[in-house]
């Protein structure tokens, strides 16, 4: 057991001290800082960037003032100026004084029509706002023509009441679901990247020890199973360190931004009671998923003889993770679909898909327990098989063709 800790701490500390680890952690932390301060940054760059639009009123109906008011109501940052002619407006556009101009013309059938012209029409936000203001103006004018009272106008504009209610007891409400979807989406990404990144790290670690031939000394002093699991746990510890750093930075930075928000951090993310359990499940499934894929990665890493072959060797494993992730992404829109239910019990998919179900639906406890039990069984089986492959694989040098090498490795580790 003692050797387990020596290998574990060696794996953890030596990785922690590598430059590439420190640099990538710092870059990620900087990225999180930037993302969590995105709104501030956008404000800082867009501060005096008020959009100016010129209006050319060709209807002679005195639309400028009412339109200006309507536009103000839609978007305060939009400033409306008047222009006499299109030629004048065009000059203003080319000298970048205004973003574009709106031509309001008479139209026999519809009353009037608007044409927005700008250098580039990629910024659809402006034209949307202009359209909205124009629509409001038009319904106002039409209402006036029909001599409707304010009350009637209000009634016309109010949509009917519409509610969705789940009949099943303690099923998630629509509002809950939308919240959950966001959280599950983010956590799925975390699981996906976590599993992929750290499992690959394990495969690389094993392959490096093997190609540098230090493995033969290691394996003569530490049992391969101890070595393999110590390494897997060492990297798990490393990943937790990294995660704590990332979430810590994210938490502090968002909290900083929200000091004047009454509800505080947790309600901002919708971390109600339900969501705390979602996060706990995310941790459980991320850990189990990592263990499963890391064991697989350690076996695969142990049969390659050249470091360049690692990527090729683990590509089937990578594909599994990607497929699981894609199914989970499709399932976000319809988590109760039967293909989601079925795949959530396949051990290699469980970490992401069962998590998706747990996060979005009210899955019976026995189903969760069953899927976790299936996963743990798979991990144990894979661990036993993996230890054998590992034991033989590390003594084997030569070409690395996946299936054949695995067979050879098993043969090498055979007792008799």
């Amino acid at each position, binding site marked *: 057991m003692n*050797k387990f800790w*020596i*290998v574990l701490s*060696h794996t953890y500390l*030596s990785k922690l001290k*590598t430059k590439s680890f420190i640099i990538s952690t710092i870059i990620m932390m900087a990225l999180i800082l930037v993302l969590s301060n995105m709104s501030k940054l956008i404000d800082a760059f867009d501060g005096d960037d008020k959009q100016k639009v010129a209006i050319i009123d060709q209807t002679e109906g005195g639309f400028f003032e009412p339109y200006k008011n309507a536009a103000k109501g839609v978007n305060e940052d939009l400033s409306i100026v008047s222009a006499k002619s299109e030629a004048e407006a065009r000059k203003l556009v080319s000298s970048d004084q205004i973003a574009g101009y709106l031509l309001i013309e008479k139209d026999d059938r519809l009353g009037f029509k608007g044409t927005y012209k700008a250098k580039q029409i990629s910024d659809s936000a402006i034209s949307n706002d202009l359209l909205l203001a124009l629509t409001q103006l038009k319904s106002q004018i039409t209402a006036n023509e029909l001599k409707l009272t304010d009350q009637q106008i209000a009634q016309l504009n109010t949509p009917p009441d519409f509610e969705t209610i789940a009949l099943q007891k303690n099923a998630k409400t629509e509002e809950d679901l939308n919240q959950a979807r966001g959280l599950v989406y983010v956590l799925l990404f975390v699981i996906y990247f976590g599993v992929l990144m750290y499992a690959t790290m394990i495969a690389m670690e094993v392959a*490096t*020890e093997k190609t*540098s*031939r*230090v*493995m*033969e*000394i*290691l*394996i*003569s*002093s*530490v*049992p391969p199973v101890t070595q393999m699991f110590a390494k897997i746990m060492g990297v798990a510890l490393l990943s937790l360190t990294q995660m704590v750093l990332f979430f810590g930075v994210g938490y502090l930075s968002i909290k900083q931004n929200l000091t004047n928000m009454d509800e505080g951090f947790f309600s901002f993310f919708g971390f109600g009671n339900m969501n705390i359990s979602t996060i706990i499940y995310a941790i459980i499934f991320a850990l189990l998923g990592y263990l499963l894929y890391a064991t697989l990665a350690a076996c695969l890493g142990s049969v390659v003889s050249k470091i360049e072959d690692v990527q090729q060797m683990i590509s089937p494993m990578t594909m599994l993770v990607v497929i699981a992730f894609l199914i989970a992404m499709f399932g976000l829109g319809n988590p109760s679909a039967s293909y989601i239910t079925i795949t959530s019990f396949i051990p290699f998919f469980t970490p992401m898909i069962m998590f998706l179900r747990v996060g979005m639906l009210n899955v019976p406890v026995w189903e969760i327990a069953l899927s976790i039990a299936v996963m743990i069984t798979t991990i144990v089986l894979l661990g036993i098989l993996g230890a054998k492959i590992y034991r033989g694989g590390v*003594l084997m040098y030569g070409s690395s063709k996946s299936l054949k090498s695995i067979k050879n490795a098993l*043969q*090498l580790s*055979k*007792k*008799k």
Partner: protein
Amino acid sequence: MSLQINEVTKKFGEFTAVNQLDLTIPEKEMFGFLGGNGAGKTTTFRMILGLLDPTEGEVTWDGRKIDYTTSSLIGYLPEERGLYPKLKVRDQIVYLARLRGMNKRDALKELEYWLDRFMVPEYIDKRVEELSKGNQQKIQLIASMIHKPELLILDEPFSGLDPVNVEILKKAVIDLRDNGTTIVFSSHRMEHVEEMCEHLCIMHKGTPVVAGKLKDIKRSFGKKNVSIKADFDLSFLDTYAGVTKVKNTMEGKILQVTGEDVAENMIRDLVPKGFVRKFELEEPSLTDIFIEKVGAVYE
């Protein structure tokens, strides 16, 4: 406390890597393993270490099977040298020594002692990849013997070293033996085995062809070498009765003869013919025995 290899056979599928190897390696001695490439030396070592399980037979040290509970008693220098290229010598050796059951402080103290002895104390804070191959080998040797093992297995310990470093490492290994470590080593260099080992074994294609005490092996080999220098023509000796091999040198011949009696007859025939500058009866060298037994030229 001896190392017993009892009727060990190892098969990989159809291929027999080691066939019926039966050896007793006495304690506190240096035992030489000789054999060409693919003779089964490394496989034998891996079975001694418990990395591979024999198909038949067993290996015991001190009456017990060698496994991970005894790994602090065993030291191993693999043929394929390997250390973590990016780690500093200090971290590397301390890690490997701890895996062999040493504590950190003792490991550091021993490491400093050995680096001083190998005259490279400045390497302690260098990364292994910065060192030359020969110096990496010194570090590797330190790694295999830092924990003062009872049994040390060295697979080709002196290959690829310059003569000065060979002498330094040889001295270190001999000191270790004198302090009570049993050492098994394989080598391509016959003179190293001849110089250092009392017992040895020559393997050929998985089967031991010669095994035992060096002196006995030489005696029972029977054939001896006669080195002759003379002022007259020696070509009649090429077909002399009892001569099995002839090698011409600049000033004379080296003959392999079947026994001392041949040499005795020979000198009687030589003296009447003229002045004999040199006539020497030599023990056969291990190289002679090896070539004879394995039947292949070996560098």
